[in-house]
């Protein structure tokens, strides 16, 4: 299937991030369509479209919206999750950077459908430039009455607050995000109650990913059937796939759901780097179980990937070649999860640390025969034993790399080194690794 540009259609326009450019490039049509209809009808449209959340879990967006009670007397808050921190994922950043009004219009449409007076965009702090683009877009939108009171004479009022996170992957998890937005440590909450009932400030809250909200705008503009022209029945629509790793042209590419991995990599990315063959890949970021070259042809949609034993996640395809060690990749990711574990649940906090220690020892040439089974067992003891999915995600590369590449682990343990054809990338740097240089801090007054 060829590329289809819906969400990314304005990406190549140099002025798409300005109000003038956006308006010229067919902006605000969705908003006008939305205001002409009843909010309840719009909620049905999104439900009918079958849109599944683009933040990773793939929960049907319309269904999520339908859980929000409309009669509690409390405001309904809309929270846009722009805390995109999953290794390999960079689709939301590009969307906000190149086309921030698309998100704003999506928010207005979604908020109107949800009768929400106020929304928050929670963007990761490292996204300073996309954040500035959004700030400027918000200011322009306010100045021209696309936000604020009585938007464009519709009688609908809406306010958006941009809120930067401060560097914590866990804040992409929806309840941790709410904690951070409320000024706390970003640690997940126990559910229920679900945010739809008691979320931000204990009010009904809808939390959607940037891409989901942007897509909802297009669906409201064009209707449910238009969206369903792409993709399989249970995963309709188009998707932004962000491809990274050892491909010739990494980047964001929009394809219909269900396009095969091979097509995306070969058509859009120019294939793997010269002289390298696909060895393993993650279909949806580092927290989704790895797949191999045998799975190169699977269609990229929620159900097909689940059938292959992995997860769609954010559609972040990380492609690695036969010159790369899967054990090193696993260690690198485990160090990431160890660093990003919020510390609330013991299996995650301690377990990832131990997995990392074992992998590091193996790569250091001191592996023991029982290590592989220990890793597998540790992963089993981490999986499903914490509040949120971070721990589950952390076990994905461990379990799947052992499943498909046990021989590489065995080689490493027996010989104490990686096979010759592999270029070492030295795993991860850890915070624990102390520099052996004398610590040089200036600002004596503070030391």
């Amino acid at each position, binding site marked *: 299937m060829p590329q289809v540009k819906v969400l990314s259609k304005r990406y190549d326009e140099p002025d798409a991030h300005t109000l003038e450019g956006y308006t010229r490039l067919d902006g605000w049509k969705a908003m006008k369509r939305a205001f002409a209809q009843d909010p309840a009808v719009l909620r049905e449209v999104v439900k009918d479209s079958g849109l599944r959340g683009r933040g990773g879990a793939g929960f049907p967006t319309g269904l999520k919206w339908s859980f929000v009670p409309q009669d509690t007397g*409390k405001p309904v808050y809309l929270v846009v999750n722009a805390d*995109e921190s999953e290794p390999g994922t960079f689709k939301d950043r590009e969307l906000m950077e190149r086309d921030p009004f698309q998100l704003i219009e999506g928010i207005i449409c979604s908020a109107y459908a949800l009768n929400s007076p106020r929304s928050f965009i929670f963007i990761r702090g490292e996204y300073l430039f996309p954040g500035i683009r959004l700030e400027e877009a918000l200011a322009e939108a306010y100045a021209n009455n696309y936000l604020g009171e009585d938007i464009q004479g519709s009688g609908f009022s809406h306010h958006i607050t941009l809120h930067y996170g401060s560097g914590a992957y866990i804040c992409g998890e929806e309840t941790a995000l709410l904690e951070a937005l409320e000024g706390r440590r970003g640690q997940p909450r126990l559910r229920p109650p679900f945010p739809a009932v008691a979320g931000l400030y204990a009010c009904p809250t809808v939390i959607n990913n940037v891409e989901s909200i942007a897509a909802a705008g297009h669906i409201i503009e064009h209707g449910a059937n238009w969206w369903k022209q792409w993709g399989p029945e249970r995963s309709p629509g188009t998707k932004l796939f962000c491809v990274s790793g050892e491909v010739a042209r990494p980047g964001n590419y929009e394809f219909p759901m269900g396009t095969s991995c091979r097509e995306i990599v070969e058509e859009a990315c120019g294939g793997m780097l010269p002289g390298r063959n696909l060895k393993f890949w993650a279909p949806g970021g580092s927290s989704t179980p790895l797949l191999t070259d045998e799975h190169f042809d699977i269609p990229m949609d929620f159900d097909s990937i689940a059938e292959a034993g992995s997860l769609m996640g954010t559609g972040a395809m990380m492609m690695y070649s036969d010159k790369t060690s899967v054990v090193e990749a696993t260690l690198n990711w485990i160090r990431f999860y160890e660093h990003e574990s919020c510390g609330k649940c013991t299996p995650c906090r301690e377990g990832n640390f131990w997995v990392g220690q074992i992998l590091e020892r193996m790569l250091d040439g001191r592996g023991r025969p029982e290590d592989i089974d220990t890793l597998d067992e540790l992963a089993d003891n981490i999986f499903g034993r914490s509040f949120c999915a971070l721990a589950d995600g952390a076990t994905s590369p461990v379990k799947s790399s052992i499943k498909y590449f046990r021989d590489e682990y065995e080689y490493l343990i027996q010989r104490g080194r990686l096979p010759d054809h592999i270029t070492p990338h030295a795993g991860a740097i850890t*915070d624990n690794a102390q520099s052996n240089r004398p610590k040089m801090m200036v600002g004596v007054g503070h030391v």
Partner: protein
Amino acid sequence: MARYPVKRSALLPLLHLVQYQDGYVSDDGIAECAELLDLTKAEVAAVSTFYTMYKREPMGRHLVSICTNFSCAVRGGKEVYDRVSDHLGVGHNETTQDGTITLEHAECLGNCEGAPLISVDYINYEMVEPDAAISLVEGLREGNPAEPTRGMIPPGVREASHRLAAIGPIDPDGPGQRLGLATAEHGAVPQPEAGVGAGGVGIISFGTNGADPTADGAAARPDEVPPPAKNVPITEEPIPGAAGSSAEAEEQTEDAVAAAGGQPDEIAEEAAPSDADPGVQGAEADTDDDADPREEPPGEADSEGAS
């Protein structure tokens, strides 16, 4: 604080502001946040230590983050980090002796198509090979940063911190150069009406009565290019929005912060870009381009003593 229905929500932006003012999350800054938000210092400290972007030691003028996550690593990110680390003679979370650069290795920065990625003050340079990385940091040291592949010239980490509070660019003539709390006036700041608790959260105004909500986080002055950090006056005014609204800084020592109901036009125009307040920022603001305390002789710098 008035940007949020519940004022505690302002904590993360306030901590970014502390970093803007002090170059790191100082003990004074923690105390100020606690005071403003009716929290204990322990509560604020607990939040500040949770997040990677809050540093507990002074940063250099620029924060150089090198991604070493795997998509960057396979394209040489680890090598870039090692080369830069060797070149600068500092490791993770350490600052060069001349105070120009704080180095860190970063977890995925969400720009994997540009691997290996270096971000300077959270502005991204893509596909930076080791040699180019050395030139980049040398350019930063000489005050001559290269053009990034995304975004604008890195403004310095303190300016970036100001933007991360989502209150727009630094305006040397406008309000917002102090957190709103000088050490002497800690108790004097009235709290804006917090939006109510769990029960009946209402939509509280954007800090001003029916004022143009653009005054809200969404960059009050979007068209303004962030001014050079030169002569950033250290005044006593609170941050609009963050400190809850308008303020009249008639006198530097008297920090009368109006609560959420203040009039927007009161937002102090006479920002009194005079001398720095000796009690607050020490010898910081009076010299140098960058108003960076760490560029000054150690004895003078940061004499306010965070301890």
